[in-house]
C-alpha cells in the first residue's frame, strides 16, 4: 500500500505531493530530500529508514517517489511509478520538471484517480483520457449520462474499451518492434544474443470486435501444419490485459477485444536463431602508452533491398585522450571528449554493405598505472521490415456483429539502442 506519492526535482524541491494515508505528515518529504536527493552515494532504489520505505524512480532529473510504512509489494509500487510516468508521457508528450509544473492540476486529478487509499485503480490511459481531460468538465444532468457510460467502462469486464466506437473506415495497424540485445566478446564469440519484441497495435475498429491474432509461433505451427521451417521459437510471451490468458495457456491462440486506439498487444522474448543485422569487427591496439589505433568495420548482414538507418556507433577512447584522428568513408565521426567516445553516425547502410572507420587516439602521458577498462562499443540502429527473431504475423482476423470489412497493416522494425554491445 502506498501511503504517499511525491515528485521532486533535481534540487529536492517538492513538485507534487499527495498523501493517500494518514500515517505520514507532509514533512516526510524532507527526509527523502536529505537521505536521497542530497546523498551522492545511493545504491538502491528502495531506502528503508526505521519502518518507512522510500521507493524512487529517476527520470529526466525528476524523482518519482512512493512512500510506505508496511511490508509493501515492491514490484507493484515500481510498476505503479512507471505507469504514472507513461500516463504523463501520453498526456503531456514528455515528463520533465516543466511539464509537471505546467500541468500540476491535471496531475493531482490523475493521481487521485489512479490510486485510492494506496491501492492502484484503473490506470488504462485510453479510459482515463475519456474523463480526465485538459478541458474542464461541467457536471450537469446531460453530463451525468455520459459519466455513467464512462464509469461503467472504467469498471466493466472490458474496462479498456467503450461500447459505442464508430469508424467510417475500419483499420488496424500492427507494428512489430524488436530490440536486439547483443553482447559479443573481444574474440567475436556471441555471449548473449536475444530479442525483446513488442507488438504495438493501433486499432480503429467499430463496435466490439473480436480479434484473433496469429504468428509463426513454432508451438502452434508444429501442431497444425508440418514441414514449415521458418517457425519461430518464442521463449515467453506476455500480453495486454485484454488478451484471454486462459485461451493462450490452453491452445496458444491469441484472442482479444482490443482497446480503442494504440496499445501494446504483447511482448515476447526469443533467444534461438537470432539474426544479427549488423556485424562489427573491431581491432583496437594500444601503441605504446601514447596512442591507440582503431580499425572498425560494420557489415550489414541482411537482404540488400533493406537498409539500416540512423546507425550510431559509440567507440570508447581512454580517459586521457587528447585528440582523435578519424577517417571514415561513410557518415561522420567525431570525438566527444565529455563522454570519452568517438561518435560515428552513418545515416544509411544498405544490406550487404561494409563501412570502415580507422582512427588514432593520441593520449596524454599520465602517472596513473590503471589499465584502460575498454568499455564495449555500443551500436544503435534501426532496420525496417526486418525481424531479428524471424517472427512474422500470419493473420489478424476481426469478427464483429455488423460483419464489416477491415484493412490491416503490418510493419516490422528491428532496432537497438544501448543494448548492442561489442567488446574489444
Amino acid at each position, binding site marked *: 500500500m502506498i501511503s504517499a506519492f511525491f515528485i521532486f526535482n533535481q534540487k529536492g524541491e517538492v513538485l507534487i505531493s499527495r498523501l493517500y494515508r*494518514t500515517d505520514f505528515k507532509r514533512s516526510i*518529504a524532507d527526509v527523502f530530500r536529505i537521505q536521497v536527493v542530497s546523498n551522492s552515494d545511493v545504491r538502491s532504489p528502495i531506502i528503508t529508514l526505521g519502518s518507512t520505505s522510500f521507493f524512487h524512480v529517476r527520470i529526466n532529473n525528476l524523482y518519482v517517489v512512493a512512500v510506505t510504512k508496511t511490508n509493501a509489494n515492491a514490484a507493484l509500487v515500481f510498476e505503479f511509478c512507471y505507469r504514472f510516468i507513461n500516463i504523463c508521457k501520453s498526456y503531456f508528450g514528455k515528463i520533465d520538471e516543466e511539464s509537471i509544473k505546467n500541468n500540476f492540476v491535471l496531475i*493531482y*486529478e490523475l493521481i487521485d484517480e489512479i490510486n485510492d487509499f494506496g*491501492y492502484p485503480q484503473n490506470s488504462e490511459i485510453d479510459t482515463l483520457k475519456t474523463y480526465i481531460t485538459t478541458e474542464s468538465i461541467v457536471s450537469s444532468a446531460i453530463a451525468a449520462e455520459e459519466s455513467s457510460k464512462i464509469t461503467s467502462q472504467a469498471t466493466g469486464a472490458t474496462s479498456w474499451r467503450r461500447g459505442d466506437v464508430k469508424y467510417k473506415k475500419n483499420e488496424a495497424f500492427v507494428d512489430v518492434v524488436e530490440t536486439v540485445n547483443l553482447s559479443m566478446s573481444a574474440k567475436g564469440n556471441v555471449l548473449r544474443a536475444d530479442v525483446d519484441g513488442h507488438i504495438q497495435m493501433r486499432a480503429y475498429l467499430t463496435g466490439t470486435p473480436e480479434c484473433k491474432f496469429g504468428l509463426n509461433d513454432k508451438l502452434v505451427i508444429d501442431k497444425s501444419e508440418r514441414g514449415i521451417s521458418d517457425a519461430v521459437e518464442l521463449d515467453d510471451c506476455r500480453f495486454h490485459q485484454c488478451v484471454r490468458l486462459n485461451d493462450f*495457456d490452453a491452445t496458444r491462440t491469441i484472442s482479444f477485444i482490443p482497446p480503442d486506439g494504440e496499445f501494446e498487444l504483447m511482448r515476447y522474448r526469443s*533467444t534461438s536463431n537470432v539474426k544479427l543485422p549488423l556485424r562489427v569487427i573491431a581491432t583496437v591496439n594500444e601503441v605504446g602508452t601514447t596512442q591507440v589505433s582503431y580499425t572498425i568495420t560494420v557489415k550489414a548482414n541482411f537482404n540488400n533491398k533493406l537498409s539500416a538507418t540512423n546507425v550510431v556507433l559509440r567507440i570508447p577512447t581512454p580517459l586521457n585522450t587528447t585528440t582523435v584522428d578519424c577517417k571514415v568513408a561513410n557518415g561522420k565521426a567525431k570525438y566527444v571528449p565529455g563522454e570519452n567516445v568517438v561518435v560515428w553516425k552513418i545515416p544509411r547502410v544498405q544490406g550487404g554493405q561494409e563501412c570502415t572507420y580507422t582512427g588514432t587516439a593520441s593520449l596524454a602521458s599520465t602517472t596513473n598505472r590503471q589499465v584502460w577498462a575498454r568499455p564495449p562499443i555500443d551500436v544503435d540502429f534501426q532496420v525496417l521490415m526486418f525481424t531479428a527473431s524471424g517472427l512474422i504475423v500470419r493473420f489478424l482476423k476481426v469478427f464483429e456483429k455488423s460483419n464489416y470489412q477491415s484493412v490491416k497493416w503490418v510493419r516490422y522494425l528491428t532496432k537497438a539502442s544501448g543494448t548492442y*554491445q561489442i*567488446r574489444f
Partner: protein
Amino acid sequence: MSIRAPRKGENYELSVDLNSEYREKRKDAIKRTIASMTVGKDVSGLFPDVLKNMQTDDLEQKKLVYLYLMNYAKTQPELVILAVNTFVKDSDDPNPLVRALAIRTMGCLRAEKIIDYLCDPLQKCLRDENPYVRKTAALCVAKLYDLKPELVIDNGFLEQLQEMISDSNPMVVANTVAALTDIHIAATSQPSTSSSDPGVFIITPTILNKLLIALNECSEWGRVAVLNALARYVAQDEKESEHICERVVPQFQHANGSVVLAAVKVIMIHMRNVRREELIKQLVRKMAPPLVTLLSSPPEVQWVALRNINLLLQKRPDILSNEMRVFFCKYNDPLYVKVEKLDIMVRLANEKNVDALLSELKEYASEVDVDFVRKSIKAIGQAAVKIDAGAERCVNVLLDLIATRVSYVVQEAVVVMKDIFRKYPSTYEGVIPTLCANLDELDEPEAKASLIWIIGEYANKIDNADELLGIFVDTFTEESYPVQLQTLTAVVKLFLKKPDSAQAVVQRVLTTATKDCDSPDVRDRAYIYWRLLSTDPAAAKAVVLAHRPPISIPRTSVSPALLEELLGEISSLASVYHKPEETFVGRGRVGVDVVRKGTDAEDRFSTQKALQTVVAGQQAENLLDFDDGPAVEGQPSGLAATEVLSQTPAAANLLAGTSSNPLDDLVSIFGGGGGSSAGGGFSFGGGTGFGQSLMSPAAPSSMGSPMVGQGSAPARSPAPPQQQQQPQDDLLGLF
C-alpha cells in the same frame, strides 16, 4: 470567522481572489492556493474562502477544493462541518463521477466531526447501481475502519463487504478484497487481539471460487489484490491446491510484472501441498520464462525480480539452470542490478557453464566501479569453491588479474586465493611465490591477514617464510587486530613446522603480543599459545596444526524456516531485503518471543548438532563460519554457542584444555564474542579471517543472518542487548 491574516501579502491576495465575483478568477486563485500548499507554504488560513467555492458544477474546481480540504480538514475541524452538507448532497448527485468523488474524499478528511455524517452516504453508495461508485465505496469502508473501527462494525459494513465479494463486477470484487485485506491486517496487528483470532477476512472455499473467477476478469492491480488473497488461503486438500495452481498459471503471461510475481507467490505457496512430481515439474518449467522476461523490465522492477529470483533459486536451484547467459551484466546496468546478477550467476554456475562465467567475470574485473570489481573477483572465488572441475581455471584467471597489479584487484584476489587454499589444500602451491611477490602492494587488513594465513599454512614449503613473517612482526603493533591475530597464529605454525629457524621470531611475537598489544583478544591468544608451547609442544601441534575441514558455498543465504516465510511473501519488501517483516515494519521493536517463535525448533536442532560436532572434535572450525557450515545454520551467535558449550562436560574439558581438540578454534569463538561486545557487531571474521569473505554473497545477508537468530541470544549473554537496542535505522546502512 477565524482570525484573518494581515491585509497584505500573498495569502491576502489569494483571499481576495477567492472571493472574487468572477468565476475564472476564483478558480485560478484555488489553483494558486494548491500550488502554495504543494511547496509547503501554510495556506490553512484560507480555509473559509476556499470552502465557499465548493458548491460548483465545475468538476475540476470541485476536485481542487476537495484536495485542499483533505489537507487541512484536520487543522480546522469546526469549519469542516460547513462542508458536510455539500458532501452529502454530492453523494446523491445524478453523476456517478461526482458521487464517487464525494465518498472518496469524505473518507480522507479524517476529522472526528465529519465521520458520523459519513455512514449514511456510505451505506447508500455501497448499494449504488453504478459499479464505479461501489468500488470506491468499498475502499471507503477500509478508510473508515482506519479512523473508527467501531463505526464499521456497528453499521454492519463488514458483512456488507463480505457480500460484495459476490458482486457481478470484477473491479468491485477486487477493491472489496483489497479493503477486506486491509481491515484484516489492521485488526490482527492490534495488540489486543491474540494471534489465534482468525480475523475478519476468512477465505472459505466459496469465496475461493469467486476469487478464481474474478481473477481472469479484473484489472491488473485487481489481479494482484486477488492473488494476494489466494496466497492466504489454506487449501483443504491436495486436489484443491492443484486446482488453484492450474487456475493461476495463466497469469504468468501478464504484461504487468507485479501480477507475474504475485502469481509466482501463489504457486510457490500452494505447490507445497502438491505431491504429483509431474505437475510440480510442469509448474516449475512454466515459471522460468516469465522470470527471465522480467529482466527486460525497467531497472527497479528488474532489481526486485532479481532479489526474488535469488530466493527462488535457494529453494529450487534447478529452476533456471540453462539460463545463466541472460544474467550477464550489461555495461550500463545500474550497480545494484549488476551486483544481484553476479550473485545469481554464481548460484547458476555448474561444470558446463563455468568457462563462460569466468570469461565474463574476468571482463567485469576490469570495469571502473571498485565495488563491483571486488564483487566480481569474489564471485570467481565462489565459483572455484563451488565447482571442483573449474577450480584450476579460476586460479588461472586470478593469476591474470594479479598480473594487472591494480592495487584493489590484487588485494581482493589474495583474499579469494586464501578461500581456494582452504577448499583445495596443497593443490595450488605453485601460486604462492606470485602472491608473496605482491606483499608490498597489500594495505588492507583482510588482504594482509589472508596472505599471512597462507604463509603460515605453507610455512614448510616457503623457504623465506620466516623473513616474510618477520616483516609483519616488526610492524606488529601498528597493524589492525585481525592482522595481529593472524600473524600470531602464522608465526606459531612456522615455529611448529620449522622449530630451529623460527625460535627467535616466535619469542619476539609472543613478547610483543602479550606486552605491547592493547587488544585483549590478541593478548589472550598469545598467552594461550605461549603456555601451550611451553608445557606441551605436542598438544600445541595438535591444536594449531589440526586438520581443517574444507569449506563450501552454502546453498541458502537465509535459514530454511525464513526462506519458506519469504517465499510466501514474494515481491514484498521482506523478500527484497531477504529479512522477515518484523525487522523493518512496526515500531522497530522486535520482540524476542516473536522472532523466537519462527526459529525455535531449528535452534534446538542446530544447538544439538553443534554440540555433537564439538564433542566429536571434528569440524570445530565450522563454528567460526556460522553461515558456512550447513550443520550450524541458524545458530544464534558465537556467545550463545559458547554458553551452550560451557554447560556440557565435554566442553568444559575443552575449555580446561585437557582435551586434544582444536583449542585454536575455541579461542576464536571467544575472540568473536569479545569483539562483538566492544563493537556491537558480530564479526567472526576477527577470529581467523574467513568469516566474511566467502559467505556473504550480498551485503544484506551478512547482517541478515545474525538478525534472524538473534532472538535467543539476549537471555544469556551481555553483548546482544546492545544490538537489540540498535535502532532499526541501521537497515539503511546496509544499502
